[in-house]
């Protein structure tokens, strides 16, 4: 028995902090079961259909049309909302004590957070795909490079909001958390220049908001960084915004996470 135990023991020190496909598979299956998923998937579609024809009179874009601009914005919004509501379900895991179970398992804390972010980003692919398909059918015109980069950036930018979701999920009670993502994300989306083209002072304020970075990066290949009024936002600034907000959300999430593993 001792030989068997020791060989099993050696195999137990799993690589990647315990992260494995089976675990991620169950994690994803749990999320797709939720009824809230319907909201996170339907809302972006409805918003896109409502907004893709609301172009301002002076709307001209170097590498596509206004529908492409709106598609990218809604894709960022949909991905971010899906990621937040998905990762905020960590509040259930905190309340149910599942986090303690995890703390007693071989899954390392960074591994656990990685699984959370990864599965939230996977979830975020669904609204991006839906909005992309709708865009293709409703007359989005854009170069191939715009199609690829805008949707890809919108999708991967969800990682920023997955970190925010983890923080919200750990900071708030499960009952409260259910209502949070929709409101917060919609407010951040208006502020981040996603739904209505902003200019002037509003644009100045917008530059510091969390969604501005990701949306500007996602639209850069379409707009070359220019707003419809001709104001320019540089690629570097958008990258700094994204990185800074990701760092801030991740820091808050990790700090909360460290506090949450104990019994109270």
């Amino acid at each position: 028995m001792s030989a068997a135990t020791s060989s099993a023991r050696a195999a137990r020190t799993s690589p990647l902090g315990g992260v494995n496909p089976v675990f991620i598979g169950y994690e994803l299956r749990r999320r797709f079961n939720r009824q809230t998923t319907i909201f996170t998937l339907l809302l972006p579609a409805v918003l896109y259909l409502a907004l893709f024809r609301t172009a301002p009179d002076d709307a001209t874009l170097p590498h596509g049309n206004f529908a492409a601009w709106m598609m990218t914005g809604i894709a960022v919004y949909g991905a971010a909302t899906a990621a937040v509501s998905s990762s905020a379900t960590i509040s259930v895991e905190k309340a149910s004590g599942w986090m303690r179970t995890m703390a007693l398992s071989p899954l390392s804390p960074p591994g656990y957070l990685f699984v959370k972010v990864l599965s939230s980003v996977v979830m975020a692919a669904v609204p991006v795909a839906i909005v992309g398909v709708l865009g293709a059918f409703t007359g989005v015109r854009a170069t191939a490079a715009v199609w690829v980069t805008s949707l890809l950036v919108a999708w991967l930018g969800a990682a920023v909001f997955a970190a925010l979701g983890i923080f919200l999920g750990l900071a708030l009670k499960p009952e409260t958390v259910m209502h949070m993502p929709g409101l917060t994300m919609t407010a951040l989306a208006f502020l981040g220049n996603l739904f209505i083209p902003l200019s002037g002072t509003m644009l100045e304020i917008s530059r510091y908001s969390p969604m501005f970075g990701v949306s500007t990066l996602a639209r850069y290949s379409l707009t070359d960084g220019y707003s419809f009024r001709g104001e320019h936002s540089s690629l570097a600034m958008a990258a700094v915004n994204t990185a800074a907000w990701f760092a801030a959300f991740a820091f808050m999430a990790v700090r909360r996470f460290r506090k949450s593993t104990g019994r109270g």
Partner: protein
Amino acid sequence: MITSRPRPVSEEVTSSDAVRLSSVVKRFTDAKGQRFSAVDGIDLRIRRGEVLAFLGPNGAGKTTTIDMLLGLTRPDEGSVELFGGEPERAVRSGRVAAVLQSGGLLPDLTVEATVRMLGSLHPGSDADTVLVRAGLDRLRGRRVAECSGGEQQRLRFALALLSGPELLVLDEPTAGMDVVARREFWAAVREDAERGMTVMFATHYMEEADRFADRVVMIDRGRVVADGSVSEVRSALSGRTVSALVREEDAAELTRSPLVRSCALRGGRYHFDTPDSDALLRLLVERRLGTEIEVTPRSLEEAFMTITASGRTAGEGVR
């Protein structure tokens, strides 16, 4: 014998110890902002293969001690070693597994999904075997939220078995279970203990300690108040309760006598807890101090109440 003080911990570290707590202290701040010691200097060594019952009233520090033992909480003073190393390492490698009091499960998962999900973290674990061993084979498809308390506890037990642990820590595993569920649960644990697993369990139920443990450690107010084999603890704590109708001043006098460990007034009768019921009875009869006298043997539970109460008044263990 029952040691009243923490056992002296010898210097050499032997790998025969599964658990080694040395002068562990943990302080918390209560709601009024006052600091108090939930665990106040506990020394505890558990040898490999031992089955140890960890007893104490609510708030005695059992759960805090277990949390520190598992590396979930850090002690303010003292040290914790599992198999001669850091608790976190032993827990993460699966050498140590725990069944905690409550929670720890996801309500929306099925029983089987829970076992498989956690099993994926323990390479080489066998989810099917574990499900059978914990008696969950027929409940595979049931959602955790729809499981009874006893079924959920068996699930926690199944999860603990996944890594094939050498030490199993159970924190009041049968709290809230009915008699049948408790019996079934312990039958499953016993089977594993017989394979040589070290088991430490906290419990409220004396008969569980009585039936199952090799050794009993009682704590109260964050200190060890008794430590010994079940029979040692029981014989040292044996005694009877003598109750009678007694006048108040006589009762006060009797309470001061060495024959009486403690005294309580319930339903107009004085209940004297005594190590020598014969002598007390003789005294009551000869001096006509009491009427309607009854003598009842004391349960281990009452013994426990006495030991913790005396620990409380004397500020130290049982002599």
